[in-house]
């Protein structure tokens, strides 16, 4: 379960988030849609503790990140928050100097202090499960965009986060690959993962997200069950956006 309460964030004097609140129940998936520049990526970065929020509270399990905390304490809790919240970046940011296996095992071994052999076995299982047999010892630069993305997903997944954040998981993929990613995420849903997926593509989120949230100008315009938001939007701005998107 992750909850955002009245989040505010400005950067370089520009107000990017203006009082964002929502909650994602365990085992459900929230899709976030919105025009370019509406603050979706910024929101995910705040949820992952990469950006310090100006006001508001983020709660995930027993971690409570309050904007009013002093810097040191905020940083400490942000680190705890990151243990619970995994992130798959839009641009993936795989570690180019490590093999696929190294990318995946680095954090479990050095952050969680797990046995390397055990982590490697688990990594191989996850890679196989996700359809990436035989790439463990290759380097990211030799993989296709789709393969790289799946490595990034496994890298986040192996930390067993309570919540997985995806920023535009299909922006770099062709339609067929993007269908594969959707199938993959659907499997995660079936396994009971809690996820937040940001996407431009309404079609991608349809049948995937339980709830949808439409953002505009750093505000939550509408947040509802997916079918309700897609087929019976209440707000005129949501209706506009959906009409243009279709």
């Amino acid at each position, binding site marked *: 379960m992750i909850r955002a309460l009245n989040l505010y964030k400005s950067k370089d004097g520009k107000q990017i988030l203006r009082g964002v609140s929502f909650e994602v129940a365990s085992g459900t998936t929230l899709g976030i849609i919105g025009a370019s520049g509406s603050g979706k990526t910024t929101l995910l970065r705040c949820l992952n503790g990469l950006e310090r929020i100006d006001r508001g509270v983020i709660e995930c399990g027993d971690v409570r990140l309050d904007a009013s905390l002093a810097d040191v304490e905020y940083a400490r809790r942000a680190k705890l928050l990151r243990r619970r919240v995994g992130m798959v*970046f839009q*641009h993936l940011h795989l570690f180019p100097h490590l093999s696929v296996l190294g990318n995946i095992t680095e954090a479990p071994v050095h952050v969680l202090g797990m046995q390397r052999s055990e982590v490697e076995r688990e990594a191989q299982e996850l890679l196989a499960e996700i359809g990436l047999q035989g790439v463990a010892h290759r380097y990211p630069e030799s993989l296709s*965009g789709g393969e790289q993305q799946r490595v990034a997903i496994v890298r986040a997944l192996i*930390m067993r986060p309570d919540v997985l954040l995806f920023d535009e998981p299909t922006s770099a993929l062709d339609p067929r690959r993007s269908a594969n990613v959707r199938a993959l995420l659907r499997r995660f849903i079936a396994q009971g993962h809690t996820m937040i997926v940001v996407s431009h593509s309404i079609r991608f989120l349809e049948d995937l997200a339980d709830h949808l949230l439409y953002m505009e100008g750093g505000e939550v315009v509408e947040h509802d069950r997916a079918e309700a938001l897609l087929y019976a939007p209440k707000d005129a701005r949501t209706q506009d956006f959906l009409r243009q998107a279709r």
Partner: protein
Amino acid sequence: MSEKKQRSIAVLCLALLCSVSSRAQQVLRWGADPSGGAPYVFTDPANPDQYIGYEKEMVEALAAHMGRRPVMVATDWEAIVPALERGEFDVIVNGLEPTEDRAARILFSRPYYVFNLQLTVRREERNIASLEDCRNKLVGTLGNTAASRLLAQRGIPFRGYADPVAAYRDLELGRLDAVLMDVPMEAYYARDNPRLRPAGPPFRGGVYVIGLRKGDEALKAEVDAAIEAIMRDGTLERILRRWNLWDAAQAELHAAMRKGEEVHYAMTAATFNWGDALKRLARAAAVTVMLAFGAMLIALALGLLLAIGQSKDGGWLSALCTAYIEFFRGTPVLVQLLFLYFGLPQIGLALPGWLTALVGLGLNYAAYESQVYRAALEAVPRGQWEAAYSLGMSPALAFRRIILPQALRIALPPMTNDFVSLFKDTSVAFAISVWELATAYRELANATGEFLLLGVVVSVFYLAMSLPLAHAARRLEQRQARRRALQLQAAEATT
């Protein structure tokens, strides 16, 4: 007026006339090194525009006899023979000892002075009573002298200095265990120093002669005659007495001359030995390599700390690191070395020369390496930090495991290039008498005259190190450029 006096006046008039009519031929250009050159020839402490010294007075007396006008050419002691050969002056008058290797290159006049050698130690020294006790000690002396040849011949480790002041100072500072020097210098520079004392009695070193170019037989005859004349008429004795240099040995030399005896003098030291020279050259090469690697290690470690310190923006630490970097990049490494070597002892920190060079070059190159690190660290994309953080890594862990390895790859080619520069820059250690390749080249070439051959040997050694390294740096650069191009292509293909 006696007949003798009349004659001498006539000679004087003739000399004057000659000097007016054909001035160029009447000059006696004599080469000597006045730096630390007491009591031979040195700057007058009371009148810094003027040189004084017993040899200067002697040359004036000789020149008067020869009907020439003496002109002193200040030169560098260690390179004095090549300078004579190049024709920068016509005679060497600088306490020159006849040695076999010099005899092969230049002519010697008859001897004009018999010198003794004196070993000097620190006052509190307990273990050195004579040269025999110096087998495993480091002894300082003037480079390229009879004393240095004697030490080489006995297999005693020694360091050749350009002037006696530096040698005695390093003895005081504990950088040397003893100094072996001709008595005239020892008397002038060490005897009154309360922190030093002579070890054992002085022993016979040899004689001083005037050096002339091969083929200048006529000038040699002139010089020999003039030496005989000033010995005979007591001029030389008066000069030496005035400088406190007259002793029984000089009396013997004068007496022998008066009796017309051929003065036999042993060539004061062994011939220059090529096997020994090669051994010393190999040692210099090893020191050069050691300096380069040692300094680079310091530079890489300290440079990283500086880069990290500098990146913590705003604080005093960053300001301190920046100040360090600006200082070491903004001043010449040579000056830094001289400061460390001569300046630090004044606050009680006297490091040996090789260590000074190693640390000094390391401190200097750390400033440059810090900037290589900084550029490399900045070249690692921010996303790498964020990906590491999002996986729960602490800043320290992210830096160590994710950022630094990538930065090192980027930094490797420029660092390799810097190592090549550092390897060549070890030659500045020459300024503080460290026995590395440049020092070895200068001293051995001066001693043998083999500037060309030794120059080639030394250059080949430098090249054997620097060429492969520079090549490796280029290869690494090309590989990185190719990899970047591939990554760019891949990125374009996915969007």
